[in-house]
Every structure is written in C-alpha cells, then in structure tokens.
C-alpha cells in the first residue's frame, strides 16, 4: 500500500481520536473525523473508485474539491440513495456507505470496459455518423444502459430542505486569505459583512497548512463582526445582486427526515468573489490513470488530512507552484523523484531544494494498467534526449492555474487572456461583483492581501475600487502537452474526451468553443469543465492557429457546482407545492361523507357517496334528488367581488357583454366577461346593491383573473373612473338550496317571507337576516330549479349548514357535489366557461350575438368582434346533442364529423352526462354552423368508435323555465 497517514503537523482538519468506519463497495474501511470520503479512500489505498463515462476506463480520485471529475460515487445511507456524489466534498460519518458508479458487475471487473477495445471506433461524435439504419431507436436502449453515471432511487426523499432570505452590505464568497482580508477590511469599515466558505472552516489552502497568520485572520474576522457561514457554497449570481448559496447541514447524514440542506437567498449591496483558482491538468498519454492527481490536491490531502497519497512521486509541471508542492511534500517524507517541467529552463522562476528538475520535458507514457506504476520521460525539444523510466507510484499534474471566474462571468463580467501565466482573468469588475485573490488572477500573497483589503474597504466606504494587480503566478505555457507524443491523452477525464478528439473536432470544423463542447462533450461532465475547459480551448487554438481568446470561452451560468433539486425547491414539496384552498366548513363536509377532489386551487366535494356507492352513482342520486325535492350545495368558492363607486355602473357596462347600468337596486343579471381579443374568459351574475354598489359573482376558478383584469383596466386605461373592486370571496360563504321544495325547506326553519318566491323573483338579490346572521340572498339558478344562493359571513357557514341539513332532510333532500351540479346544468344547457368554451370562443358562438347587437355602449373586446373571423358563418356554435339511439353516452371530447377520420372536424362534445331525470344521455357540443342545424344527424367519433347523434334543442329539461320559479 502506497498511502499512509502523516504525523502532525500534517492533518490540520482531522481528529485523530475519532475513528469512523464506513463502507465502500461493501468493504468496511476506517477513516478519521474530518476526513472526506476521498481522503479516507486514499489513506486506505483505494485507487480505483469508478469508471469513466464512455470507455469505462478505471478512474480514481483526481482533485481535492468541487472540481472532482472522476472520484464519483453513489452514497447509501439507510433508505436514502444519493447518486453522483463527489467523494472529495462529502465528509465521512459512521454508517456511510458508498458505491462505485458506472460499472457492472464491479468496479474492478467491469464489462463496460470492453468499450475500451473499440475505442478507435468511438471517436468524438461517432454516434452522429452511424446507427442511422434502420433507425436510432433500435440502438438506443443499449447506449442508454451504458450511459449515465449513478443510480437514482425511486423512493420518495424523506429529507427536508429549507430556504432563508438574508441581506448584507458586502458578501464575500470564498474563505481563503484573500476573502478573509476583504471581509475583515469591509467589516472594520463598518459594513455588514458575510463570508461564505464551502468547507468546514475558512482559511483555504494556507489555513490547511496550519499557517498561524491565517488563524490570526480568522480570529480578526470574528472580532471585526464578520458573519462566517461555513459549508456554504455560492452557486449562482442572479439579477440585481442576488446570490444563491447552499448550506450543507452538519449531521444531516443521520436519521431519516432531517434538515439536509438550506438554500440561502442573499441580496448583497456588493459581492466580492474570492474563490481562488482551479489547477489545470497536464496533458500526457495515460494522464487518466488512477494515481495521476492534481498537485495542489496532493498537497491538500497531506496538509489538511495528513494523507500521503504516494511514496515516490513525479511531478509533471508547467508552473512554478509545482516546486512549492514538491518542497512541501518532501518535508512530509514523500520522495520526489523529479519535476518534469514542460517549460524551458528560462521560464522556470523557482526551484525546489534537493529535487531533480528536468526542463523542457514531460511524461511520454504512464506505466501500470489500473494504477500508476511508473512513467517514461520525454523531451519537449529535440529527439536526442533519451527517455528515462521513473519508478513512481504517484504522478502529480501541475499545468498552471485557471482562476475561478464563474461568478464573475455569471454576473455579466468579461474575461481576458493573460498570456504570461496563460489564464483567463476578469477583465475589470462585473456589475456589482469584484474579484480578489487568485480568482482575480492575483497570485502573489502580499499583493492579494493588500488588494483584497483595499477592495473590501473601498466597497464598504463607497470609494472607487482599485483594479486587480494581476500577476505573481510566474510563467506558464498555454499548452500543457508536448506536441507529437503518441498515446491517448485525456482532456475531459469523466467523458473520455482525448486530445485526438479535439483534433477531430478541429478537422471537422467544430471549432468554436461551443461547437467543440457540444461535439466532443468536453466540459459537459459533472465537473462542468472545471478541469478541462481551458485545456480544450487552448488545444483547439493550437490546432487552428488561434489565440485561446479567439477560440472564446463559454459563458458561465449557474450553478457553479451541481445543486440538489430538493435544496432549490425548499419547502415547496408535498402539500406546500401550491396552496390548496378548503371550504370554510371542510370538517362538516368530511363528516357528511364528502368525496373531495381538486377543482382548480380548491379542494371540493365532488359528491357525497353513500356506503357502496361509486362517485358516479352518488352524483346520479344527488342530481335526481335536486330535481325531485331539494339539494344543498356548498358554493363558497364562488368568486365574489364588491364593485363600489360613483362610476361603478358605467365601469361594469365596459367590463361585461350585458348592460348592468340599467339594473334596478335588488335586480341581478347574467353577464359574460371578454378579453380585449373578444374571447369569453368568465361569466357570472351582477346584482345591484345600491346606486353605486354592485355584487359580482364570477366563476370559482376565474375570480382572481377577473379581479386582476378589472383592476388593470381601472388603473391603466379607464383612470378617470372612480370605482373600487374588492374581492370578498373569503368573507362570504355561499350555501345554495336548490330544488322544487327549496323554499319549503327554508320556510320550515323560519326564513323571512320576504325571501319567498312570491316576494322575490328569479334574478334578484335581497339583503336580510336569518336570526342574527346577515344574509345576501340571490335568486339565480345553475340547476334550473328554484334556487337560493345564500351568501353569509364565513364563520356562520357551519351553523347554517347544520340547520339547512335539518331542513331538507325531512323533505328527502340531500347534499350534492360538483358532479351532480355538472349533470344538472348540462340538462339545462347552461355553459361552464372553460369547459364548453375555450380560448377561441366568442360571445356570438354561445348565443350572445343578439345581446351584443342590442347593447349601445362599448365594452372590452367589442372591437375584436367586428373582425372578419368573428363574422365567419362557419364558426363553432353551442348546440345540444342526443345520441340517435337514445342510450349511448357521447364521450366528452369526441369529435363531430360526417365521415370517419381522418377527415375535417365539424366540432366536438364539450359536456356529456347521463341524465337521471330523463334516464337518457344529454350532451352539449360546439358545432360548425350549429345554430342552424337543429334536427340534423351527425357522426360523433371517439377513439375509433362512431356514434350517431342528433342536434337537438336545448335545454333538455323544462324548456319554458317554469321550474325556476318553484
């Protein structure tokens, strides 16, 4: 085993007194408190962690952070399964179990690795060139099984997520020394300052080394009043300085149903990005082998976790930082065989004591099949230098750095190519966001500290923000590969994009960075290109004789790292997904056997089935009961508006097809609401309560839309009208008593004779009282029977329901639900807006042509009714339909046509029920020229079945409307 645990002072983040055992692919391993899964696997000598996406090549841990492309596992924790977890960011806890991804039957023996044999047949985009015949869908299932990484569970997630809003003056993203310096200066200058750090504590790389200066800065930040939020990753910068971040909650791996992650929505006056830089890998043959790791990561494993990832190492380098890593690892007792520096000696700005350095050289080949066993050197210039074999067990890749410009770019910032260090850096600040430290391209420690503090202070005090002193990283070549070396070298380790694939893309003209990404899939892996993008575009530039900046960078979008869907959604799960409204007397209805269903955003009784009764049977019984004696319906969701003001009548004339200004006080009228395009969008009843005071009923589903439309017309167009629209839906319950014995029932419990049919006509509204309960009683009917719509203060509805129930019971009455109401109104030929009409229905289509002709005033939508389409004789018109055999139900949604399909449709069935009163089906339909086709036979087509039907005269019941009057 080549890995071991280093003695102190290495291992600043671990707790050596706390061993923790966990499972990896069923094997029990032990790590220490503070270990990540990656550090614990490494110290246990686990090199092979998973398999790559396309070729199923062996993959190990490559990095030490969120950029990890290959050390991906599925986590299992009791019933919970979390796919595609980066082992580098998850802390181990007792009982944690991890599984390798994308391999079968096991990570060591993976049948998918056969793909590797066919690799030459599978270059970038191979699937665009083949699998066309006979069709792709034939090949697809195999491809799908091979693709994908982790496995998701189909068990409902029991864990919990929440969302919190906060505001700060200055938000610093990143807990390294630059971020700390900025936060301290800002807080000391008096700004409310918050610092987010993705890890368990701030300090960054230097902190992990135990640098006392960093500890002092952390203490100073505390004294200055900086709010430090650990384990919190800013993943997105959105419009107007909104930063969204996710906080991992410690201990969230235990127990089912814990609060697992928290979403922070942070509005900041200014944002400072201090997220550091990612290391660029070197490109050499075999650079994907487990045991090839980023150099900074290997140092971090030693510093923070006390893990020596290997005994004898070789460093492939293109930057000065490699030498600092070499120096540091030597002090840990790790043997550094050589630094193979791709740069000429003149570019190398430093050296490492006692470490052999080969300038202008690199790795020509990696030895070992599933783990590094050594490497062969190669010279960058001149074939004369002999290749040498180095028996290392670990290769460090140090290709230079790529500043984490993601948040800068998300905020709309631009980038420029810094040629000396070969990196993209922010080209000045982004709107509202300033970068400091390595993510600004500032690599000198002193310069970064001074600049960061200056930026923090300036933003706090409103001063001009100083530009970033970019530099300090030394010289790096743009290209991290030695051209001409043979062998498969990888750019994107997860997606198996090799340097040759970039070459193929260049050859085939997929040369813009976006085409390159999409054609080769480079940068499309779960690391989002953090380890691959710069290498890919530099190589493309090299192959097409362009500067990296000319190839372009993709625009970074949120999320900065993959983000849990549950976290993004917060509390909006289960019943809190969207508000669902309940009747004021919901318990009463439940106790009376209501079967609740969702109707729009209301839960309402569809029917009240008796024992053994289906919903349909119950609705039939209820509808029959209303026709025969009396029914009680809770219509509380009915939309209710009070329209008040000196211009209320004039306003309602503008809003409705009907004329409302001619209503006398106490009188009510039906009306249609149109939109500006002339389409029927709502209907309802308007009653006059006073000279400038109206009561308006809208549909239950349409009340918010209608009230909003009224308000918009008043505030934006008819601004001279003095009218108030006030929604009172929730204030009033609505209990409807309907049926030939409705008044008998009301009279029996002592309703005032003023409400009797003799004293109160159909389509009138009367204010009064029942005992101490104030009432607004409307005589209108959606059933076709004598009906009382009793509007009363909502808190009284339970009591009145009880009394009304007692009143109707002796008369053989019953409660009825929505389904029975639908039957009853269909029997009467009454439309239901949104069911019988759709977004194309004009008032003339449903029989309101004459009402419009007779109305003098303009109204919303009127002009649109004058267009040619509105006057087309072929328009669909509302009709009633009966099956020719008198028995067959015409399915709702069935199409009408003389010939069998495919053929031109003439219309469709919009409402259809079995009428218990007629013992026959009844239906409404929209039919071309329907108004003039009474008596005609038509074909009704439903899923290949044809039913003959007759256009009949509506209504089916009580054509004279005598029952309305009791």
């Amino acid at each position, binding site marked *: 085993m080549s890995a071991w645990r280093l003695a102190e002072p290495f291992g600043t983040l671990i707790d050596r007194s706390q061993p923790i055992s966990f499972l990896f692919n069923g094997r029990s391993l032990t790590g220490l408190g503070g270990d990540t899964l990656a550090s614990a696997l490494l110290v246990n000598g686990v090199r092979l962690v998973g398999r790559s996406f396309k070729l199923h090549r062996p993959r190990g841990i490559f990095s030490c952070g969120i950029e990890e492309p290959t050390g991906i596992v599925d986590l299992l924790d009791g019933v919970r399964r979390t796919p595609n977890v980066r082992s580098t960011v998850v802390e181990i806890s007792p009982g944690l179990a991890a599984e390798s991804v994308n391999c079968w039957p096991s990570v060591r023996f993976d049948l998918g690795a056969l793909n590797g044999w066919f690799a030459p047949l599978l270059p970038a985009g191979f699937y665009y060139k083949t699998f066309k015949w006979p069709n792709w869908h034939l090949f697809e299932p195999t491809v799908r099984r091979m693709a994908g990484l982790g496995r998701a569970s189909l068990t409902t997630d029991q864990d919990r997520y929440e969302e919190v809003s906060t505001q700060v003056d200055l938000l610093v993203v990143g807990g390294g020394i630059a971020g700390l310096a900025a936060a301290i200066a800002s807080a000391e200058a008096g700004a409310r300052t918050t610092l987010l750090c993705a890890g368990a504590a701030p300090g960054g790389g230097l902190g992990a080394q135990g640098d006392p200066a960093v500890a002092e800065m952390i203490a100073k930040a505390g004294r200055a009043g900086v709010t430090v939020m650990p384990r919190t990753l800013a993943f997105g910068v959105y419009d107007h300085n909104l930063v969204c971040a996710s906080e991992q909650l410690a201990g969230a791996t235990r127990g089912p149903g814990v609060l697992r992650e928290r979403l922070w929505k942070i509005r900041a006056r200014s944002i400072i990005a201090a997220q550091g830089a990612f290391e660029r890998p070197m490109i050499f043959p075999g650079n994907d082998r487990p045991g090839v790791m980023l150099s900074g990561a290997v140092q971090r494993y030693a510093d923070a976790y006390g893990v020596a990832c290997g005994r004898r190492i070789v460093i492939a380098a293109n930057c000065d930082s490699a030498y600092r890593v070499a120096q540091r690892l030597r002090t840990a007792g790790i043997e550094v065989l050589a630094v193979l520096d791709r740069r000429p000696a003149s570019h190398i700005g430093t050296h490492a004591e006692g470490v052999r350095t080969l300038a202008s050289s690199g790795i020509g080949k990696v030895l070992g099949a599933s783990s590094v066993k050594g490497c062969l050197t190669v010279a960058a210039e001149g074939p004369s230098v002999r290749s040498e074999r180095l028996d290392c067990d670990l290769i460090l890749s140090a290709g230079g750095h790529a500043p984490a410009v993601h948040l800068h770019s998300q905020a709309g910032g631009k980038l420029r190519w810094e040629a000396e260090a070969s990196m993209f850096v922010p080209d000045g600040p982004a709107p509202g966001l300033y970068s400091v430290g390595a993510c600004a391209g500032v690599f000198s420690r002193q310069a970064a500290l001074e600049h960061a503090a200056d930026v923090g202070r300036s933003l706090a005090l409103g001063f001009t923000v100083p530009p970033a002193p970019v530099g300090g990283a030394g010289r790096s070549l743009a290209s991290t590969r030695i051209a001409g070396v043979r062998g498969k070298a990888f750019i994107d380790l997860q997606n198996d994009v090799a340097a040759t694939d970039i070459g193929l893309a260049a050859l085939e003209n997929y040369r813009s960075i976006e085409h390159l990404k999409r054609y080769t899939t480079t940068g499309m892996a779960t690391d989002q290109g953090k380890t691959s993008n710069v290498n890919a575009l530099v190589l493309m530039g090299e192959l097409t004789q362009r500067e990296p900046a000319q190839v372009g960078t993709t625009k970074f979008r949120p999320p900065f790292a993959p983000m849990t869907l549950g976290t993004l959604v917060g*509390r909006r799960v289960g019943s809190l997904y969207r*508000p669902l409204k309940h009747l004021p007397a919901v318990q009463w209805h439940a106790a009376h056997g209501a079967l609740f269903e969702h109707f729009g955003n209301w839960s309402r009784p569809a029917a009240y089935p008796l024992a053994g009764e289906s919903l349909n049977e119950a609705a039939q019984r209820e509808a029959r009961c209303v026709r025969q004696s009396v029914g009680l319906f809770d219509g509380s969701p009915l939309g209710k508006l009070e329209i008040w003001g000196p211009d209320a009548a004039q306003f309602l004339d503008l809003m409705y097809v009907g004329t409302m200004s001619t209503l006398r006080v106490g009188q009510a009228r039906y009306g249609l609401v149109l939109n500006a395009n002339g389409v029927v969008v709502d209907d309802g009843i308007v009653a006059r309560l006073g000279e400038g005071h109206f009561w308006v009923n809208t549909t239950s589903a349409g009340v918010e839309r209608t009230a909003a439309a009224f308000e918009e017309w008043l505030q934006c167009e008819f601004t001279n009208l003095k009218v108030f629209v006030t929604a009172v839906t929730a*204030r009033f319950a609505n209990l409807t008593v309907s049926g030939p014995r409705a008044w008998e029932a009301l009279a029996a419990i002592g309703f005032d004779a003023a409400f009797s049919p003799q004293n109160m006509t159909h389509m009138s509204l009367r204010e009064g009282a029942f005992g101490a309960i104030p009432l607004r009683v409307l005589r209108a009917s959606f059933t076709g029977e004598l009906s009382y719509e009793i509007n009363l203060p909502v808190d009284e509805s339970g009591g009145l329901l009880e009394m009304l129930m007692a009143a109707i019971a002796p008369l053989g009455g019953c409660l009825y639900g929505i389904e029975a109401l639908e039957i009853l109104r269909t029997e009467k030929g009454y439309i239901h807006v949104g069911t019988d009409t759709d977004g194309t229905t004009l008032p003339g289509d449903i029989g309101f042509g004459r009402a419009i002709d007779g109305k003098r005033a303009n109204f919303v939508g009127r002009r649109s009714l004058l267009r040619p389409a509105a006057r087309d004789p072929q328009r669909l018109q509302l009709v009633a339909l009966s099956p020719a055999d008198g028995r067959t139900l015409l399915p709702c949604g069935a199409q009408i046509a003389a010939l069998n399909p495919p053929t031109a449709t003439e219309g469709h069935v919009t409402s259809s029920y079995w009428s218990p009163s007629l013992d026959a089906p009844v239906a409404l339909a929209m039919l071309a020229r329907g108004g003039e086709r009474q008596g005609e036979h038509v074909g009704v087509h439903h899923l290949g079945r044809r039913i003959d039907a007759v256009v009949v005269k509506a209504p089916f019941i009580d054509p004279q409307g005598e029952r309305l009057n009791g």
Partner: protein
Amino acid sequence: MDERLDWEAALAATGVTVKVDRSVRLVALRYFDAGGFGERLRTALGEGIPAPLGFNRGRYGAAEDPFMLVWRSPTECWLLSATAAPIEAISREIAGFGDACLIDQTGGILALRVEGSRTLDLLHRLGSVDSVPRAGEASTGRFADISVTAVGLATTEFLMLVERGHVVHLLGWIRETLTDF
C-alpha cells in the same frame, strides 16, 4: 380529520409561537381622496390614515376599545378591532359619503400573531427580507408564496393578515419550518 385543516391550535418552537387570533374583526376602508377621508376617520376614531407602509394604534370611546389602522395601498387601509364599536363609529361617519366605503372582511381575512425572540428568523424563512416590514411598519408581500399583510408590532411580534383560504397553507409552511427550528 386531517390535522393540517385544524388551524385553531397554536404552533410553537423555541423562541417563537404562532396563533390565529380569532378575536380580530377586520374591515377594509377604501377611499378616493385620502385627505378628505382621513379627516373623517380622525373625527370618528381620533386617528387618521396611516402613513404609507405604516400603521396606527388608537383607543375608541369611553370603553377605550383598542383598534389598529393598517396601511394597505394608496386607496385602502384596514381597521382591526376586537369590538364592534370602532367599526360602527367609522361606518356611521361615512354613511352617505360618496367618496369612501367600508367592506367587512371579518373571517375572510385572518390574523396570525407571531411572537418571540426568533420571530424574524421565522419570517425570513417565509419570505424575502425586503417583504418583512420593520417594527412600526406594515406592508403586504409574498410569504410562503402567497400574499400576506405583515404588521411589525415589534421586532419580536408581528401580525400576519392572510386570506382565509390560504391560512392552512401558511400555517403548514410555518409548521414545517418550526419542526426544523
């Protein structure tokens, strides 16, 4: 019965309690001319229309009935009171006055009283900091994805005025939040 639908019981966690206050009567006052109506309001109750994003508290009559006027929009404020007397007073005052009206919303808009040292922690889990009024202010905004009028009685005491149909949803969100408090 589904416990979610039983919203009369108080919810509590360390540092915060939430209870629907059924004693609150609530009427909406709507007016075209804030100046003229404000005068009448002052005559009737001794308090004028609250400043935008504000609320006033007062006492009415010999019985010193407490009431509160909560700003809603440039043409609307709400009168909250435990007794009928202040409501009847303003009702009498504007009877026949063509420039303002009173609409009783009692029972249609419910009042939640949120109290305790962690009140703001709870509110910031329901809505944006921008939407939470400061102590001494009142405004309407999005909480638990629905519209709520919040009255900042103190940093540790708020009223949340919410349409009745949404109270189950709002309390559901609060209950879930307090579970994790």
